[in-house]
């Protein structure tokens, strides 16, 4: 089975120039943790996810400092949350996105998702435009369906 047979073709995407807070509201409304970011030429330019928002909000150096517990919220976090309303999607999104082609086999997509730790993967057509998206759940459902049949 190829991924184009199971991918979700009706894609909701975000524009890189969209306000980051508005984009997060879209995620909340859709009850989804991330969406692809597509430019005017329908080219995939990044992924906007809840994880990237958290990365922007929390200080990056804290991981390097080592084990500790936050007992209060740092002032910087408040400032960054407020700053998010002034930021564009392109400033928050992850640019390095793992993608697959329409003719990629189902197991290869599962392989890519597992090794690259991707929760969802955009699918590109021959013109390298985004033509669909698959999540881990879609892949699992398709695998179970194929084996039952």
């Amino acid at each position, binding site marked *: 089975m190829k991924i184009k047979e199971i991918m979700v073709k009706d894609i909701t995407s975000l524009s890189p120039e969209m306000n980051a807070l508005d984009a997060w509201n879209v995620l909340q409304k859709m009850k989804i943790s991330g969406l692809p970011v597509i430019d005017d030429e329908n080219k995939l330019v990044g992924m906007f996810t809840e994880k990237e928002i958290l990365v922007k909000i929390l200080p*990056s*150096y804290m991981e*390097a*400092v*080592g*084990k*500790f517990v936050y*007992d209060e919220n*740092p002032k*910087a976090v408040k400032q960054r949350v407020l700053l998010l309303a002034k930021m564009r999607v392109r400033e928050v999104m992850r640019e390095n996105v793992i993608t697959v082609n329409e003719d990629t086999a189902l197991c290869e997509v599962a392989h890519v998702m597992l090794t690259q730790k991707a929760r969802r993967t955009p699918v590109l057509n021959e013109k390298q435009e985004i033509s669909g998206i698959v999540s881990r759940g879609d892949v699992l459902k398709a695998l179970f369906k194929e084996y039952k049949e």
Partner: protein
Amino acid sequence: MRNLPIKFVLLILISTALGFFSHFNLGLNTHQALSIAIFSVSILGTLFFWSFRLSFAFLGTAILMMTKTIDLEHLVRFASLEVILFLVGMMIIIGLLKDEGFFAWIVSLILRMRNLSAKKFVLSVTIISALLACAVDEVTSIIFMVAAILEICDYFEVDPLPYIIISVLATNIGSAATVLGNPIGILIASKAGLTFEDFILKAFPVAMVCLVAVIFLIMFWYRKSFKKLDLHIKELGGNDILIKLISVPVEKKLKISLLIFGLTLLIISLHHRLELLWNLELNTVLLVMPLVSSGGIMIWKKHKAREYVEQDVEWWTLLFFLLLFAQAGTLKYTGATDVLAQKIIGLTGSNPHILSGAILWISAIGSSLLDNVVLVAAFIPIIQGFQALQVNLEPLWWALLFGGCFGGNITVVGSTANIVALGILEKEKKIHISFFRWFWVGLTVGLITTCLAWAILVFLPFHR
């Protein structure tokens, strides 16, 4: 990326010119000239193509082997495996300390400072930066110093840049105080036969004198920033929230980690005495102790041992050092550095004051532009070459150490601590520091500390 071809052509031209110059003008033979040309490729590679430095080191080493400039046996001998293993061991110990919250605990102690004032904050930042740099290493210590500074400056809504610069300046000075502060410390100790005691008696006081001078200078230089911080402290009424911002549970594991680290430091500080007691070769205990501690850590934390080795050890950097040391050793193996040493003596005479002054200033200026390890690796075989010319080497080793560490303060790219600290600042605050904003304060501090070190080397008989 646009300048890549130009830089590449420049690198090849300079290296080839150096090779030809040393062959035709200095009278070096083909192998000696080739070793100089290839070593200069490695040096210039770090300057022009920082992210490709390991590739240059790999290719350069391969050329040295293929052209029979050095054989495998000597390449391995000159790779200074003892220094690499020491650094591996220390990185594993630091990995454990980080994992158990030691550095976060230090950050929390800084945040919990009572009756905070600008003066108290600056003094604490300067002293803690310097002391931690000499106890762990400059790159590790600067990360959590920057973390503490950013939290405090965010809280009081002041520009963190002056405090970050102050911390970096103190870190670079402190890194000269012991063998643990900077990779060049252990490299010089290993090659010169200097002990931890020598560093405590001769390098530590010099670093502390320089630190005091720098504290006075920055108190004047950044007086307006300090006034602003004092004003904001008064307005916001102390650091009550900062005091309870983060906590690190002092668990048994943290206590054991501190015990291991404390014991390692204690035995390293007593290594020379123990070597005399047990009739061991000089610096055996110094070089072996981090291996003993990290070996114990990997038994204790058996499930995390791989993580410590794979993630906390900077293999990329260490492999570069290994090949760099081997290439620098080639200069000695071919006799190129002996010829250079004779030429230098011919120019300066064997007066130790002039020689140590020349090494101090060349290494200070050089390390303001280059990685100080590259520079020190290049200088070591030259200084060793002076031995045959009946020159007292000790002041030269100290000159190399002080120049290599203090010169790092001069420019924004002078040391890894500068790059790491300003990288965090840029990522967190979008503050990009221009070359000249750093340069004036860096140059002043670099000049003052190098002059002080020079005066101490010349006038105090202790270092002779």
